[in-house]
Structure formats: structure tokens, C-alpha cells
């Protein structure tokens, strides 16, 4: 299972890539594997204010629909429009295909997220 070392992880299997005060959010390789072929990614609205652990959007696979929670609080400033027509990127490039990016209002929230080792351990326990 691919778990890059430079990302932060949640128990809901989201990842965050931090660039300055912006966090890019996607779902992990484990999550995409569990969901199977992803057929639709609903993109949130830009400028939406969001709290950490709040449901940001939904993704649908051939097997299920799953919520994506925002790991951090702030304002959604970017969405990955490539996913509109190419949702399979979620399967083929789990860590390249971010869904949305949040301008973070509280950087300290990142400390409560897991690093790669902790997430690996978490997966093993699960």
C-alpha cells in the first residue's frame, strides 16, 4: 500500500498536502482500493467555508457512495476540475488527484492528523 511520507492523514482515509497555508485534500490509495472503480466525484463549491471533520463532498464508485470530510478548517479555494470528466484519476493516481484545496484558518489542526507511519499503523489495526 502506497503511503507517501510528506502527507498528513485522517482516520477517514483522506490525505492533506500542505503548501504554505493551503491544504490539498484527496483520498488515500487504501480508500480508492476499497471503493473500487470511482465513477463520479462531486466537486464542492469554491468559496465555501468549511470546518474540519465537516462533510465536504461525495464520491461514487461502482460499489458505493462515500463522503469526503475536510481534514482542516478554512475556505475552499480550489477544486480539481479534471475529475469532472476523469474520475478514474482517483484510482490511477490517488495522491496526485486532489479533490479540493482549503485555505487553512488554523494550521495547528494539522498536528492532530496522522503522519505516514501513524496512518500505516492505523491501517494495520483496522
Amino acid at each position, binding site marked *: 500500500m502506497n503511503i507517501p511520507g510528506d502527507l498528513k492523514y485522517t482516520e477517514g482515509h483522506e490525505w492533506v498536502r500542505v503548501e504554505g497555508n493551503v491544504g490539498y485534500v484527496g483520498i488515500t490509495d487504501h480508500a480508492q482500493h476499497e471503493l473500487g472503480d470511482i*465513477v*463520479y466525484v*462531486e466537486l464542492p*463549491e469554491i468559496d*465555501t467555508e468549511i470546518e474540519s471533520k465537516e462533510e465536504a463532498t*461525495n464520491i*461514487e464508485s*461502482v*460499489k*458505493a*457512495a*462515500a*463522503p469526503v470530510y475536510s481534514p482542516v478548517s478554512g475556505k475552499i479555494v480550489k477544486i480539481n476540475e479534471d475529475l*469532472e470528466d476523469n474520475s478514474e484519476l482517483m484510482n490511477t493516481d490517488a495522491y496526485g488527484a486532489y479533490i479540493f484545496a482549503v485555505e487553512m484558518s488554523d494550521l495547528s489542526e494539522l498536528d492532530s492528523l496522522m503522519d505516514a507511519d501513524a496512518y500505516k499503523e492505523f491501517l494495520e489495526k483496522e
Partner: protein
Amino acid sequence: MFSYLPQTEKDIKEMLEVIGVDSIDELFKDIPKEILQKTPLNIPKGIAEYEVYKRMTELAQKNRQGLSFMGSGSYDHIIPSVVGHVLQMPNFYTAYTPYQAEISQGILQSIFEFQTLICELTGMEVSNASLYDDHTAASEAITMAVNTRKKADRILVSGTIHPNTRAVIETFFSDIPVKIEEIKTENYVTSLDAVKDTIDESVAAVLIQTPNFYGWAEDLTGLADLVHEHKALLIISSNPMSLGILKSQADWGADIAIGGTQPFGLSTYFGGPSVGYISTSTKNTRKMPGRIVGQTKDVDGKRAFVLTLQAREQHIKRQRATSNICSNQALAAMGSGIYLSTVGWKGLKEASSQSFQKAHYLYKRLTEELGLKAIAEQDFFNEFTLVIPDADRVLTDMESQGIFAGVGLGQFFPDLKDAVSIAVTEKRTKEEMDAYVELMKRVLK
């Protein structure tokens, strides 16, 4: 197929034994006692088949034939006989929804054709396989908007939509934190200034009906831009027959087009069944309820139909579904599809423009010769609302002489007890309309 399945006491006893319970009552033990029916139902004793037939015939003979000028959502248009012939084919009317969809190519094709016709009429890009009626279509369209604009919780609904639509919306959203607000009207059309005054980013959708409940054609110039400026969705409900000559929902810039297809090949019955239609742009496809049938090629390269999408419901989304309406009105929708493919676009324009012209003929005679006043001076399609003093008596008198002269709006709005909505279709002849005017003249005296 059996018409009925008899059960003897012995059958029942055997079945109970097999499943290991003592009595039929025990099957209902999970239902709380306080809501169980305790006394037997008040159903008369059985009678012989012949007696039933006689009784039903007697009841049927009480029906009165009359010329209908009633509308308010259900219209008496001409129905080509082929519609009835196709609908009475048992392979269509006995079939329930195809669970193994692709094996039923006939029903899938009929749904595909229906969707295509709805898209061509409304000018939108994608249509589903139909919903129950225009009222549930309105509620489902609002649901789409609420799921698109998750942080917006206000819905602006014009005061000129059908009161039944309003009632269904109220029921739909009674336990959902969404506020339904009525847009003020001016001379019985929607006030666009009122929309401007109240709209902001807390509004998820604006719902307008044109022609509206009173028959008046709404002028929606500039509305779409105003609504979209505030990120809301514009939902427009239209009698599809009016789209033969009036602007389509896409022409007005709507995001979601809805309505009921009863005017296409479906009798007025007792007000139903109709068929709700809902169509939208491609980007909203995933939010649309129900199912979408698509066209493809089979392994031999031949034209074939597939169930392309039904994501919102239990199959995939389960508890995350945003609609639980999986039903469509397949048989009635097929009736509308057969109607449209029989009359063609030329026939539709003809039915539409004759309805328009005949309604204007009757309006002219009633207002100019009989001096009746319209509730407001507005443009209309095939339906208009007049003020008729003592409306209840007038309608009853005319009905007793074979003319259903219109729908009294007092039953919907107590302060409109003298308002009568009158609808005319291409089915009415000049002689019938002249007879209407003469009878009205006598009855008014």
C-alpha cells in the same frame, strides 16, 4: 397468470405450520398494539359476479358526458387512437419496472424516446425516465438545488404556481431545514422586482410556473441572470403543450425544466395519472432523481438500450441517497411518447397553436360580448381566468346543461370565489365555443 389465488382454511393452516407460527395474527406481532386495527374492516359480504357487474353498470351510467373547458393542470386534448392501442398491449401494461433492465429492450427504448422528446421540447440536455407528476417533479427539482447549494436554505416559490404544487412542496420539505418563501405577485404574475428585493446567496432555488396557475404567460426576461448572479438555480415549470409555440425553459435560461405531460396523449380521467418530467443540463445529471436510459451498440454492433444511470437511489447511494423516488410513470410516459411520435413536431405545433387561437376566440367573445372581466389583463396560452359573479351557481347551471365551463378557483383560494379558470384545447370546435357563449349568456341573466 391467475386472476385470483384462493386460499382454503387448510392451505392457510399448512402454510402457518411450514413457517412455524400459530395464527395469522402472530405475523403482525412486531407492529405496536396501539396502531393495530382491532375491529374487523367494515366490508359488505360478498355478492355474486353478476350482481357486481349489474351494480358497477348502474354506477357507470351515472357518469355524465359534457364538453370540458376545465384545465388547471389537466386538459382535454385530442388523443389519437393509436395511443390507446399501444398502451393496451399486455406486454407493456402488465409489466412492472424492469429489474433486469437490459433484457427489456422495448421498455428501455420507450423510455429513451420519451427522454429524447422531453429534451427537444424543453431545450435541455438531459431528461430522466419521468416522475409521478409535475408536483413531485417540482419537489425533486428543489431537492436537486438544495443538494447543489448545500449552504443555502431558502427556496423562493412564485405565488402563481399551482396550489397543488405548493402543497406537495410543503409536505416534501416539512421535516427538512429548508425555508419555502412565496414570491409576491402583481396582477397575477410573478413580480421580478420582488425576486430582486429578496434574493441573496442563501437562496438555493427560484421556482416559477409559466403559463402560471391563472393561465397567464410570465415574462421572465432577465430573471435567469438575476438568479445566477446569486448562485441559485432557476426551476421553470411549463405545460409542455405550450412549448409548441411559447419559449422553452432553456430559452428562459432555466437550470431545471419540469412539468406534467398529461396534455400529451393522456386522458383527464379524474385528474390523473399524469407524468412528471424533469430535465436539466449535463452538469446536474448526477443530482437528478430516477433513472436515465442511454443508447449504445450491442456485441453485434446493433442499436441497443441500457440503463445508463440510476445513482441517486438505493443501488449505489443507499443511505446517502438524496431522493428515494425510483418510480417512473413508464406506461403513462409511453402514452405521451406515442402521442408525440404520432402527431410529430408539426402536429404538436398545430395542436398548440389551435389551442391558443381557440382560447383567444372564446376570451374575446366572453369579455367583449358578455362584458366579463379577466382577473388581470395578461397574455395567455390556452387558459385564462375571468371574474364571474356568483361563479358557483353559474358553473353548476352550465354543468347541468352539459358544459363543464371551467374550474372555480374558490376551492383553492377562498378570496377568489368568483374567479373561474377556463381552458380551451384544439378539440373544441367553433360551434362548441359559440354554444358555451350562448349558454353563459342565458345563465348569467
